[in-house]
């Protein structure tokens, strides 16, 4: 998979083949390209690039009342003041701690289970592959709000059975983290399992045959042949999962209606929401948004670097 190291059409073109889509007959191709690529380019500009730029701008200003306050509030340029405020805010640091703890459990657990299940599906002994993979995939289509609601009820005393079954108090102060991990792992395992399984199907059969002839058992083959082959796919899934984990928002917000253990700023995304739409402190919310985007970019870069090093 080539998400972050795209091979372009030119590079993959066999030598001597004609360049694809070279403009012919007086530049009609550029016009066509404008019409075909234009709508998406406009959307990307208007709903991603401009908002990011705007958030950056907002994060550098704060609203102050001037003098005696007769003129109404106006925006003051504060350099990185909002960033300092956000980073100095105990609530924000707690939210980062929560989401870091959550990601450290959720990411390896979910991807690990997904990989093991994909390898099981790919093993020769399995019957009814379609049925198993579909069963595990189905939670992916459940909206986050509804997933949160279903599990919140299952966690609730007197309604769901989990209060008695789980080794932790699912809605108590220390139980919220494993409870959230349980919800999001439920949602995402099947999707990633299918991605991994699809990648495993492309491992050349003669390589597997050679491993078998060399006396490698199924476990050995899985670990030493199959997993290394799909490593790029695993790293891409890792990037998406890490970014998704940083954005954790819907499930804790839903749980808030059922327990007081989730604070209104439990994750960085909840913090942004609270600062922007409850406190109306746009500068601070924008700074927190930018920090979130920055963290995503840095972590993705880190994971991709790691992946590049692993594959030499």
């Amino acid at each position: 998979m080539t998400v972050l190291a795209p091979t372009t059409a030119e590079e993959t073109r066999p030598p001597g083949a004609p360049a694809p889509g070279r403009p012919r007959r007086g530049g009609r191709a550029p016009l066509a390209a404008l019409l075909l690529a234009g709508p998406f380019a406009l959307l990307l500009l208007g709903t991603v690039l401009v908002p990011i730029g705007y958030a950056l701008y907002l994060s550098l200003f704060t609203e102050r009342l001037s003098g005696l306050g007769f003129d109404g509030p106006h925006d003051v340029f504060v350099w990185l003041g909002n960033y300092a405020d956000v980073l100095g805010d105990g609530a924000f640091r707690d939210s980062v701690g929560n989401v870091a703890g959550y990601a450290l459990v959720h990411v390896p657990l979910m991807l690990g289970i997904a990989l093991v299940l994909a390898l099981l599906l790919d093993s020769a002994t399995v019957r009814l592959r379609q049925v198993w993979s579909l069963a595990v995939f189905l939670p992916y289509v459940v909206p986050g709000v509804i997933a949160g609601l279903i599990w919140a009820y299952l966690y609730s005393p007197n309604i769901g059975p989990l209060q008695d079954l789980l080794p932790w108090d699912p809605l108590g102060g220390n139980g919220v983290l494993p409870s959230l991990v349980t919800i999001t792992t439920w949602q995402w395992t099947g999707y990633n399992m299918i991605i991994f399984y699809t990648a495993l199907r492309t491992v050349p059969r003669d390589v597997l045959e050679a491993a078998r002839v060399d006396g490698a058992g199924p476990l050995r083959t899985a670990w030493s042949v199959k997993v290394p082959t799909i490593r790029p796919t695993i790293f891409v899934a890792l990037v998406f999962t890490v970014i998704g984990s940083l954005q954790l928002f819907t499930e804790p917000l839903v749980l808030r209606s059922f327990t007081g253990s989730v604070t209104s700023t439990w994750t960085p995304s909840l913090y942004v929401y609270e600062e922007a739409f409850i406190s109306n402190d746009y500068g601070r919310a924008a700074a927190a948004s930018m920090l979130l985007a920055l963290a995503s970019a840095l972590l993705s870069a880190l994971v991709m670097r790691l992946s590049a090093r692993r594959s030499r």
Partner: protein
Amino acid sequence: MNTTGSGSRWTSRGAVHALLLIASLYSLLPLVWLLTSSTKSLGDFSTTGAFALGGFHLWDNLGDLFAEEDGVFLDWVRNSLLYAGLGAVLGSLICAACGYAIAKLRFPGRRLLFAVTLAGVLVPTTALALPLYLLASQLRLVDTFWAVFIPLLTNPFGVYLARAYADAAIPDEVLEAARIDGAGELRIFFTVALPMMRPGVVTILLFQFVGIWNNFFLPLVMLTDPHLFPMNLGLFQWSSRVTQFPQYSPLVITGSLLAVVPLVAAFLLLQRQWRSGLASGSLK
């Protein structure tokens, strides 16, 4: 078969199927709970076991659901279908066109567009919510259909997939032949390229439908008029009253069932399409 090697005990047929069964139970039991619970009256809901059946009240619950607040739930169903249906059809077409252009046409800025698209895949949507809201409010679009609809059309990952599909599925010779026949580039896209990319485009459409149907942050931020809510935002609002007013529980649960069933049905029916689409798209 597969009885050689040190792992034979653990990869034996029984153990493999036991693990798959456990994973399936984890995945399906919450959905079974949703199904059984939506048949229960409020009284049975808190007194019968989680998976036990009480009296059958599904039809009563559905009646109550659509009668609540003058039938606002029907608006939510319609809105979800509009946001996700129109959004996915239009959005996947936009993705297909752009992905095709990047893969098969040469134009200035092509590499830049693709690089920015890949960066766009990685931008956290929760970081975009505030600036999108403020921009929408300057354009007087807050609390309108468009405030939710337009941003959700943008699907950078869909463009990435569409480019991969176009690269893999459309031989340059076919495009050359069409050009020699005198067909214009737009016509070639719609009549030659798009049909060849069909399994991929259906996959993008299906996943974008789910993405929009399940999106929560944007409607939460943009909308205050309940008549514009999608199902999940409306159900979230009702669910926040559950601790004070338990009578909302059957409504929330029955409504949740209705929000899940169409997606499950779509993925069951279109299995062959999206499985092959994922295979050809993610594995370039």
